[in-house]
């Protein structure tokens, strides 16, 4: 009946250069109350997880009080704008296509942010593509972090049949 497709896919990459572990998407629990349904999904790691815990890298003190180079929010906003516009400009919303497109756009944005080579910053990229159907929606986020070092950049794009929102969160690794 409903052609709503909700897909969530997440990918990870190790910063230290070790072999990246395989992740599988598993549904952990499904509870049904009287008139609401909630589903929980968590990414689970296979195999190498235990070894990684034992081999945690202990780093020496850098005596660095803050980031030498701050995260350039305007530059990243431009990247987001550029990517979203070029990928979504004349497109129409289709389920299969948009599933692939969200993942592709995510990867492209992450690669371009990495190219900026900002040391000691971890990044989280979120992309949402949705159909315009007269519905209303609200997206919000709150973060518990160090406000002097951590920041985010966000851009939203709309055409006649779809909308796209991209957000990048940058967190300083102390």
């Amino acid at each position, binding site marked *: 009946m409903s*052609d*709503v497709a*909700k*897909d*969530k*896919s*997440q*990918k*990870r*990459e*190790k*910063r230290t250069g070790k072999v990246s*572990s395989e992740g599988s998407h598993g549904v952990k*629990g499904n*509870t049904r*109350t009287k008139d*609401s*349904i*909630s*589903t*929980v*999904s968590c990414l689970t*790691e296979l195999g190498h*997880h235990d070894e*990684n*815990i034992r081999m*945690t890298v202990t780093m020496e003190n850098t005596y660095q009080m803050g980031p030498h180079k701050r995260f350039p929010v305007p530059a990243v906003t431009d990247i987001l704008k550029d990517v979203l516009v070029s990928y979504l400009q004349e497109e129409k*919303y289709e389920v299969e296509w948009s599933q692939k*497109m*969200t*993942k592709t756009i995510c*990867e492209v*944005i*992450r690669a371009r942010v990495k190219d900026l080579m900002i040391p000691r910053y*971890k*990044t*989280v*990229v*979120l*992309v*949402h*593509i*949705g*159909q315009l*159907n*007269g*519905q*209303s*929606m*609200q*997206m919000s*986020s*709150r*973060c*518990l*972090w160090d406000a002097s070092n*951590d920041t985010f950049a966000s851009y939203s794009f709309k055409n006649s049949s779809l909308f796209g929102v991209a957000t990048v969160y940058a*967190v300083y*690794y*102390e």
Partner: protein
Amino acid sequence: MDDYQTEEESVEAAIGGNAYQHSRVNQWSTSVVEQCLSQLSKLGKPFKYIVTCIIMQKNGAGLQTASTCFWDNSTDGSCAVRWENKSMYCIVSVFGLAI
């Protein structure tokens, strides 16, 4: 990241049993996120958190969401909870980054 229970409870507590109302959705999403975040901070772990919430009216429209992260796989993680009732969907995702 196995505190999805916290998330689920926060969502249920904040908006459970309500029908979609445009005027109130802002307040709901703020309260969902704030409750989530306060529960997470009570855990007292050395993590920075990012909590995202999307509330969407049920209208037959489709939505795709993807996220990719550049972090340390052994210490950082994320979790997502999807909740729905007859008139709306709510997706809450939590990212935890070790400091």
